[in-house]
């Protein structure tokens, strides 16, 4: 008899002996969930390396055995039998035998079978394309449904749930004023400060007013407001509708004969479309105030800053910015509600919808902003 190896892990030890075609694994100590992991691979390697006709586990020294220990025994049995040899467990205490009988019928699966099949690059591209196509189709269908419902709401204003609309307007609009004002102010202040230093070297620091005025009114005011709206209200709409979907409230509306789009989406979209231009005005105003603070600190009187601003920006700049913000509001609220209505089941579903609402919202804002830039350029606005 030849002793090959002795392993000791915490309070578990094993020793292997090989004798004319029979390998015996002597297990001593606690074979439990904490100790089994340390000897798992080594125990399996005994079979692979010695290729015994008969493999015996001598469990006379096992003082404790739990599910993990039984799992190891089952795995050894499976490995040995699939290699064409015989397997036996000897001297396992009666109490642990009962555990072995309990788990004995469970088929042992190779870990390779458990891992999902790896998709090829082409398959992955195909799957992603299908998903994007499906998403686009849903978006177009929802846009159509929402447009029809909005027209119907315009034709029959008494069908709109105005109370819900005003409530949503308060949450998405009024309550957002402080954050919009703060971000607008900081944006104006930082932009003015960063541009004033290099421009001063050329004696052009008065033109900071032009820079702030045009960039805030035409571009940054609407954009920052829309992004804040997507993060703040688009996500809230998705979470709210998603929770309603999980709690079967959307199904309840449908079976009552009430259209969820008219009942839930229209008030929120109307609230966002009304509130976004108003919030943009606040962002613009506070951006200009931020610029004024820098200009005053540079020694320019407020009236000079004001006059320069009025000569640089026109009503068209303000209106083009506000018209963009209308569209941004529509898109953010629409996609937020769509993601909410698409919520599946399970604890993570609402979280996924919320994330998706913000990401889709911001992507759509960026695309729409590009479209507006080309449009305004073509129209000479």
């Amino acid at each position, binding site marked *: 008899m030849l002793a090959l190896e002795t392993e000791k892990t915490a309070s578990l030890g094993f020793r292997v002996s090989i004798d004319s075609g029979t390998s015996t694994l002597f297990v001593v100590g606690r074979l439990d969930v904490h100790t089994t992991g340390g000897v798992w691979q080594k125990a399996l390697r005994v079979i692979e390396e010695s290729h015994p006709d008969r493999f015996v586990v001598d469990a006379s020294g096992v003082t404790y055995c739990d599910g993990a220990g039984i799992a190891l025994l089952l795995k050894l049995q499976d490995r040995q039998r699939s290699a064409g040899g015989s397997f036996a467990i000897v001297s396992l205490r009666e109490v642990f035998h009962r555990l072995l009988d309990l788990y004995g*019928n469970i088929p042992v699966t190779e870990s390779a079978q458990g891992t999902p099949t790896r998709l090829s690059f082409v398959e992955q591209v195909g799957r992603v394309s299908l998903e994007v196509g499906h998403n686009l189709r849903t978006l177009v269908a929802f846009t159509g449904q929402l447009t029809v419902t909005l027209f119907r709401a315009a034709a029959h204003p008494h069908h709109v749930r105005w109370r819900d609309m005003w409530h949503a307007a308060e949450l998405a609009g009024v309550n957002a004023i402080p954050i919009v004002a703060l971000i607008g102010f900081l944006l104006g202040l930082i932009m003015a400060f960063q541009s004033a230093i290099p421009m001063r070297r050329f004696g052009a620091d008065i033109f900071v007013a032009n820079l702030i005025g045009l960039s805030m009114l035409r571009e940054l005011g609407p954009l920052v407001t829309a992004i804040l709206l997507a993060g703040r209200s688009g996500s809230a709409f998705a979470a709210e509708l998603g929770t*309603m979907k999980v*709690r*079967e*409230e959307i*199904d*309840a509306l*449908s*079976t*009552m*004969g*009430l259209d969820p789009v008219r009942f839930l989406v229209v008030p929120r979209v109307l609230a966002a479309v009304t509130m976004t231009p108003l919030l943009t005005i606040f962002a613009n105003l506070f951006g200009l105030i931020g610029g004024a603070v820098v200009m005053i600190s540079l020694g320019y009187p407020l009236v000079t800053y004001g006059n320069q601003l009025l000569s640089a920006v026109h009503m068209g700049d303000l209106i083009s910015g506000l018209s963009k913000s209308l569209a941004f509001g529509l898109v953010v609220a629409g996609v937020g509600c769509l993601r909410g209505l698409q919520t599946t089941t399970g604890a993570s579903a609402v979280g996924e919808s919320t994330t998706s609402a913000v990401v889709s919202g911001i992507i759509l804002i960026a695309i729409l902003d590009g479209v507006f830039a080309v449009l305004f350029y073509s129209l000479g606005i």
Partner: protein
Amino acid sequence: MASPTEDVLIRVEHFTAAYQGSVVIDDISFEVYPGEVFVILGGSGSGKSTLLKHMIGLFEPVSGAILIDGDDMVTAGGDTRARILTKFGVMYQQGALFGSMTLRENVRLPLEEFTDLPDEAMNLIADMKLKLVGLDAFATYMPSEISGGMQKRAAIARAMALDPLILFLDEPSAGLDPITSAELDQLILRLARSLRITFVVVSHELPSIYAIADRVIMLDKRVKKIVAMGPPQELRDKSTNTWVRQFFNREASAEATG
């Protein structure tokens, strides 16, 4: 209890349903008669909630027809569908009350949307329905302020707002203690007997089924078909199907015991 000789209120014909691409119910047919308490029974995963959701028009079947008071739910659109929807109310497993509204507002909602009743009439009707389910003292409470059993009763009140012919209940006893569950059973029986409302109930709670059901159908996920139909006591005592007997006698199947 209604007899088969009376008119049929719901007729399901050659109905096949799939869930995520695999067939869960394969070509079943049955009828529900006016005024009866009809229970759809089956083990977990047998497709009983799926069947209910098809009957109330939330899902579209692979094939077959679902006739509710003569109109086919599957093919109906526009006005016909709207007419079918007014004929039934639904109580969902979790109640599905609107969390931003009080109980009275929840019950008022269908009245606001589908009637031109004056405000005070709607309030009165909502309070009457809440009184019927014993919740008149909680009319101004929000759903989150009442217990699970009360939420289910309020959901029944809302489902009854437009005095429907049929009430569909999805697992009314789920998550309730035995006493609350028994109270809900009493309420269902009272409404069925006094108002002649037809109930279609999805359940697998045996005490509740014995208490309320006039007839049951049993779905078996292995054959994807109805394996038994009739009064529950009769099925328990006389069924020749082993699985049906095991179900009614709460015996574990050979698979589970190994």
